[in-house]
């Protein structure tokens, strides 16, 4: 039984749909005058952030607070970690303070797994992004956004930009999702490939060969080097940021050439099917992977994804902490993709 959310690959289809459906109800709380539920009163959620992150941290913080949990924010900068404390000692400190859940963001892939399996802490561990490995709550909020737009109409079809619908109970069977950009350094891409595959969608990764991880052929998705060839067959296009801060080599000749071959501009957006949406996990680099025209269009769901993030994180915290045992029970972990790119 799972007490933690480490990898999107650990979620079964039923688990994933339970999280999405729960998030659908959580989203409705945001429309009320009192946006607060008493459900996690007396529980403590620690945000343990070893890496800079604004939107993920405040998203988890807002989610925990809306469920009435106590939130402790711990960022590595200016903390005992900068004085040389190890992950283990930090974990033991948090355990002594009675943390019921630890939301961890770490620059090293596998840190949340280590925290969850070492026996250092008794609470739940939620992976909020580890290195270039996974970011499962981002994948869940992306799937939630896709479901509302691509399966949100009453008949289960796309909503054609008439606002998000309610896709409760549905999966993403048959939807074609294209993820474009820096797959190599992207934890978002990896988590999305696993989760979307679980939900029945067909994923195509588009990137220059240098920005694809080794072993991508074992991932449950297709790979293409030609963005224009797949656009017309995409229900959603997810543009990823080129993570120059993680790059220690030259992966493409110039930014201009990257932008021309793999960036999404108005012309390429016009090649998409009428109902298709444009997604971005943020932060966006306007002019690089996405033009301002596309970013500001009605098809672009960036702002909505942020709002959905709070609902998804409320759902995850509720399902992990709301009862006497987590509701997300999974059997043996599915085949995870290993990380093995050159560094």
């Amino acid at each position, binding site marked *: 039984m799972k007490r933690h959310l480490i990898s999107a690959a650990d979620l079964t289809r039923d688990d994933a749909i*339970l999280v999405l*459906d*729960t998030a659908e*109800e*959580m989203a*409705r709380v945001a429309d*009320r*005058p*009192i946006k*607060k*539920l*008493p*459900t996690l009163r007396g529980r403590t959620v620690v945000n343990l952030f070893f890496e800079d992150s604004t939107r993920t941290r405040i998203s988890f913080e807002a989610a925990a607070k809306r469920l009435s949990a106590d939130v402790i924010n711990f960022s590595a900068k200016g903390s005992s970690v900068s004085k040389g404390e190890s992950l283990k000692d930090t974990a033991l400190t948090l355990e002594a303070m009675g943390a019921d859940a630890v939301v961890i963001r770490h620059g090293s892939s596998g840190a949340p797994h280590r925290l969850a399996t070492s026996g250092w802490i008794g609470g739940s561990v939620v992976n909020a992004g580890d290195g270039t490995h996974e970011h499962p709550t981002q994948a869940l909020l992306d799937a939630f956004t896709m479901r509302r737009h691509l399966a949100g109409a009453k008949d289960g079809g796309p909503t054609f930009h008439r606002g998000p619908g309610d896709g409760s109970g549905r999966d993403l069977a048959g939807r074609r999702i294209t993820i474009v950009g820096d797959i190599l350094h992207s934890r978002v891409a990896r988590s999305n490939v696993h989760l979307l595959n679980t939900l029945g969608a067909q994923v195509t990764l588009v990137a220059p060969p240098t920005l694809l991880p080794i072993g991508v052929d074992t991932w449950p998705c297709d790979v293409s080097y030609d963005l224009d060839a797949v656009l017309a067959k995409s229900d959603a296009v997810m543009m990823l940021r080129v993570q120059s801060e993680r790059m220690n080599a030259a992966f493409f000749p110039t930014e201009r050439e990257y932008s021309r071959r793999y960036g999404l501009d108005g012309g390429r957006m016009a090649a998409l099917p009428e109902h298709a949406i444009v997604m971005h996990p943020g932060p966006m680099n306007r002019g690089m992977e996405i033009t301002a025209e596309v970013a500001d269009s009605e098809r672009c769901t960036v702002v909505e994804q942020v709002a959905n993030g709070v609902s998804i994180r409320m759902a995850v915290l*509720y*399902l*992990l*902490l*709301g*009862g*006497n*045992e*987590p*509701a997300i*029970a999974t059997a043996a972990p599915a085949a995870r993709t290993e990380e093995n790119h050159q560094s």
Partner: protein
Amino acid sequence: MAEDRSTSARPVLEAPDMARVLTRIAHEIVERAKGADDVVLLGIPTRGVFLARRLADKLADITGRKVPVGSLDITMYRDDLRLHPARALARTDIPGDGVDGRLVILVDDVLFSGRTIRAALDALNDIGRPRAVQLAVLVDRGHRELPIRADYVGKNLPTSLRETVKVHLTEEDGRDTVLLGVREGSPADE
């Protein structure tokens, strides 16, 4: 939840009785609310929602006006959350005009410990401030654990704690009936 296997389950309220009981409750609501102009019906999922919709139809027949009807999920307000795994949530759907200043009538299938209604009152508190809150139930089986009573009762059913009361509705279970059975094994919450 499914108590059907208990061999001794016997019906205590059949479909025609249920229809009559709901008609009577609707008339009582109109009488006590002096025309029911400001009534909002909120059903507690799952079966309370179907009962609320049926009551709304009957009220519309009597008064000639549409009565707002919605649902109020109480899962997140339960006092026994930590005794079970986290439960799946049901839909909360408040009619467009809200509940402020209105007469809210909560509708549920079985009134037992009263804890569900306590949770519903808490949930309602976060949604708005009704003029008054009343409670309509199909069956009151007694054994209250909180100072809560129903304003409209379909059928008072004196039971022992060993017995189970199970409401079946056409919308959810294919037929209308209330079954009284004997509990086997662990006590379940009704």
